[in-house]
């Protein structure tokens, strides 16, 4: 292994960016491919697939055998709003492999009593997200219904290219939200990435059912990363 390759790989991993270590098992030569880098041919197709699934493995291409070691940051879910839905969403998401952080400046909502064993911040999103920035391996669900709390976080999620952005509220509520986000400088294309009304359409009624719908939509967004805008088939 090339020492420079190892240093580069560790730097990417520390920064929570996806990186693929590609090793030619014939001659031992290796290199780092970053997510979104163009690699031609069968090897490129296999690399794109490994980025999406996170599965490492060997691939035959160009008459050689390559080992692809996929180093993906752990996905996480940031929930804006310490509400009833969040109480169900936090344990379910954690079981599914998505660690959760909950942010809500309303101290009556954000209590350890209501959210045992959850990373909980009784602070404004502005403060929490400055300390712990969003990134493309973070999902954000805004569920307070309160523009004063949700809007900043939604704009930050679009700027950080979070792999999932969802916002609770009816179509009418969302139409007003779109106007506000445009005023904050988000583009129409960016705003179109917001899932609203939030959650897969499974007819969810109770807070726990809505949590299932949000989690399912988050997983779908994670496992189909790059499929909507890059047209990668595999």
């Amino acid at each position, binding site marked *: *292994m090339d*020492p420079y390759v*190892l240093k580069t790989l*560790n730097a990417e991993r*520390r920064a929570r960016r996806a990186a693929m270590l590609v090793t030619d*098992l014939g001659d031992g030569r290796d290199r780092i491919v970053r997510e979104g880098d163009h690699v031609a041919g069968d090897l490129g197709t296999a690399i794109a697939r490994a980025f999406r699934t996170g599965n490492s493995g*060997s691939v035959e291409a160009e008459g050689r055998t390559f*080992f692809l070691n*996929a180093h993906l*940051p752990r996905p996480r879910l940031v929930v804006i709003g310490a509400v009833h839905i969040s109480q169900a969403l936090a344990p379910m998401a954690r079981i599914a492999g998505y660690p959760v952080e909950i942010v809500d400046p309303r101290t009556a909502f954000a209590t350890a009593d209501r959210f045992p064993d959850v990373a909980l911040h009784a602070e404004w999103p502005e403060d929490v997200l400055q300390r712990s920035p969003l990134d493309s391996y973070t999902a954000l669900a805004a569920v307070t219904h309160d523009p004063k709390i949700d809007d900043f976080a939604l704009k930050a999620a679009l700027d950080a290219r979070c792999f999932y952005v969802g916002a609770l509220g009816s179509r009418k509520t969302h139409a007003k939200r779109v106007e506000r986000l445009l005023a904050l400088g988000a583009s129409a294309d960016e705003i179109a990435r917001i899932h609203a009304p939030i959650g897969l359409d499974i007819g969810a009624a109770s807070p726990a059912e809505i949590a299932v719908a949000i989690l399912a939509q988050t997983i779908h967004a994670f496992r189909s990363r790059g499929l909507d805008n890059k047209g990668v088939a595999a």
Partner: protein
Amino acid sequence: MDHSIYLDEARDPLIIAEGWMKDGKDVAVATVVETWGSAPRPVGSHLVIDAEGNFHGSVSGGCVEGAVVTEAIDVIASGKARMLEFGVADETAWQVGLSCGGRIKVYVERLG
């Protein structure tokens, strides 16, 4: 289960390997490149080894690490990478096989 989204720098084998390298040590990196059947560590898992036989990480549930460390010390000396295979189908299975019944292939290479 670890729920942190950040690297566990004190236990992460590749971070440790980089630290050893900075300390001027000779290092080998072992990687699980293939598994069949029941295998305790997934493809991509690492064990890192220095020339004195110190190691961090894992490529199995502790079943074959000893053998990998021995091979890694040779790899550090020769600089030539090796592909190792362990499992019940292997004739050495009685000594260092995987009791779980699986098979694994481990690529061992020198760092630098």
